Every structure is written in structure tokens, then in C-alpha cells.
């Protein structure tokens, strides 16, 4: 290895979260290199060695994160989160399969590939049901389909949007929830913080507004979030859950979760806890190299 820092933090556009992560690392005296993914040139293959033993990827871009992580892992880097985790969290169908494999409760989901078969899937699920882009975030293009005519309009619209992913119709049963859902932060095997997000809108997402209050991290909520985090491969993860009539269900797990609105209500130093865990991995990696 070179004299470069043992840790790289890969970013694209900086969010508040990345600034807080940089501040947390600096407060701990950690040496790290900030890497803009727009400037990366990565040689695929074992012939190259990763410039950094540990890479913490905080890019906004799912595509860049996925491919950079795959390559850097093959070059020997420990990536947070791993390529497997990124690929699973960034693709809702892959997430559903991971939940099913681990018995994590989640709303019933059907995947169809044509407008006609998707309409049949809507009938199977019953109206209302929910159409989500198989790759996408921040609640964008998530649509509640209340009727056959609404479904026909939205599905036709998606089919002409351009990218092939929009013709992978990921349809989910609509679950009534009591005006709130939960976001739970899992670091390693520990649930470090949790919030309830209140909203009158059927989509509750702090990126779309909504009131926030702290939730308990012990008990069923934290336990279910840790199960979901393990199901996708574990790491630093933000788990979204809803309270269905028959218990908690997990909607998704975010691999580059946003936490700016969760620090004040919970009183938890979320970036600090994340930084501590990553620096623990850096220490392990450096020790392995010293004694190898």
C-alpha cells in the first residue's frame, strides 16, 4: 500500500450528511481521503490494488456506487457498504428476495414486465396497490393505483419513460398505516437510533416533509430493523418500516441513508456512531496488513 490514507470517503454531490460525516471523522483525528466519484478511474481486475484498504461510499448515485464498490472490492478494499449490500438495497426486487429468503415481513409484491400483465397483477393484489420504480429513491415515481383506469394510465406512462427499468413493474399491496412510519438506523448489529415520521400523505419520507419524533430503539422496532439489515447483508443501513394490522413490515433498506432530520429528535450522534464503526473496520484492516 502507498502512503495514502487507510480510509477513503467517496462522495458525489455533498449532502448535509456527508459534511457531518467529515466533521465526525475529523473530530476523531481520523486520516481519510475525500474522493469525488466523478474523478474516479478504476481498472477492473485483480491486477490493480485498491489505493485504500477501506472505502466508505456516500455517493448519491446508485450506479456509480455499485460499480465502484464491485471493482474496489475485487482490488481488495473493504467497502462500506459492500457491493452485495448496495446491489440488494438499490434494487427493490433484490430487496424483496432478500427479505423473503430471511423471513422478514414485507408487503406482498408482484413483478410484471408488460402493461397487460401488470394490470393483471394489480387485479390480483386488489386496489389500491402501489407501483414503485425498481430502482429509485426519495419516493420519486411511487404511485398509488386506486383503480383500473388509474393503473392503465400510470403503467402506460411508465412504459414510455425510456429506461428499461421502468418496464419492470414492481407492484405492492397497499398497507394502511396509522399516519406514520419508522426509519431505523442500524450500524453493524446495533440499532442506534429510530424515528417516527408523521404525515397525512400516504408517502412518509422526510425528504418530502413530515413531522419527526424519536422512537424506541429497543423492542420490536429495533429487532425487526436489525433482522432486515442482516437480510440484505449488514453494514450501515437505514431501514424503513410500517405498522400493519398484523405487525411490523419492512418496506426497504437504504445503503446511503439520510439522517439530518433524525439527529435532533433522537439526540443521537448518528454520524459519530457511523464514523466509530467505520474506523473500527479501518483498525481491523490495518492490523491485518501489519501482521500479514
Amino acid at each position, binding site marked *: 500500500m502507498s502512503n495514502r490514507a487507510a480510509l477513503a470517503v467517496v462522495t458525489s454531490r*455533498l449532502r448535509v450528511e456527508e459534511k457531518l460525516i467529515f466533521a465526525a471523522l475529523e473530530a476523531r483525528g481520523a486520516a481519510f481521503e475525500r474522493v469525488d466519484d466523478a474523478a474516479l478511474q478504476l481498472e477492473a481486475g485483480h491486477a490493480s490494488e485498491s489505493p485504500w484498504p477501506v472505502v466508505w461510499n456516500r455517493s448519491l448515485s446508485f450506479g456509480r456506487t455499485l460499480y465502484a464498490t464491485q471493482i474496489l472490492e475485487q482490488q481488495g478494499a473493504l467497502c462500506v457498504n459492500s457491493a452485495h449490500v448496495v446491489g440488494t438495497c438499490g434494487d427493490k426486487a433484490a430487496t424483496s428476495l432478500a427479505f423473503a429468503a430471511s423471513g422478514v415481513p414485507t408487503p406482498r409484491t408482484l413483478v410484471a414486465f408488460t402493461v397487460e400483465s401488470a394490470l393483471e397483477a394489480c387485479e390480483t393484489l386488489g386496489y389500491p396497490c402501489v407501483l414503485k420504480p425498481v430502482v429509485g*429513491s426519495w419516493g420519486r415515481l411511487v404511485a398509488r393505483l386506486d383503480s383500473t383506469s388509474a393503473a392503465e394510465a400510470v403503467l402506460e406512462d411508465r412504459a414510455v419513460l425510456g429506461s428499461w427499468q421502468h418496464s419492470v413493474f414492481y407492484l405492492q399491496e397497499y398497507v394502511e398505516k396509522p399516519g406514520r412510519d419508522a426509519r431505523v438506523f442500524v450500524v453493524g448489529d446495533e440499532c442506534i437510533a429510530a424515528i417516527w415520521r408523521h404525515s397525512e400523505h400516504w408517502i412518509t419520507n422526510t425528504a418530502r416533509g413530515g413531522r419527526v419524533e424519536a422512537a424506541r430503539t429497543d423492542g420490536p422496532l429495533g429487532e425487526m430493523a436489525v433482522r432486515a439489515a442482516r437480510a440484505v447483508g449488514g453494514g450501515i443501513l437505514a431501514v424503513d418500516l410500517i405498522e400493519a394490522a398484523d405487525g411490523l413490515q419492512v418496506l426497504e433498506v437504504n445503503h*446511503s441513508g439520510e439522517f439530518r432530520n433524525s439527529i435532533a429528535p433522537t439526540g443521537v450522534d448518528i454520524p459519530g456512531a457511523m464514523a466509530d464503526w467505520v474506523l473500527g473496520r479501518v483498525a481491523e484492516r490495518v492490523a491485518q496488513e501489519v501482521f500479514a
Partner: protein
Amino acid sequence: MTSISKPAALCPVCEASIDAPADSITGEILACADCGAELEITSLAPLTLEEAPDVAEDWGE
């Protein structure tokens, strides 16, 4: 909180004078108070700003 702003740069859209907060870092986004354009800080010394890229379809958390 008192902070010393970095020397101003011009908005590449409307040429308004823009100060960046003292704790700014490259890659961060500022909004032009005059025209509302989202601007990315591409360097700090000197302060330079470019129009921020539109949100891409695969962006998110």
C-alpha cells in the same frame, strides 16, 4: 454565529455576487439568492461556482 465568508464569486446564471459560508467545502451546493439557481462549489481558492447537475434518476439514499 459569526463566520467569515469567503470572497464572493459571480453566479454563472445571473451574475449576482455570491458569498460562500466560511465552512464551505468543494462539492457543496449553494442556491443563488437572486435567481435561485443551484450552484456547485468547484473550488474554494478562488471561489468558483458552476451550475449543479440536475438530479439523476439513480440518485437517492
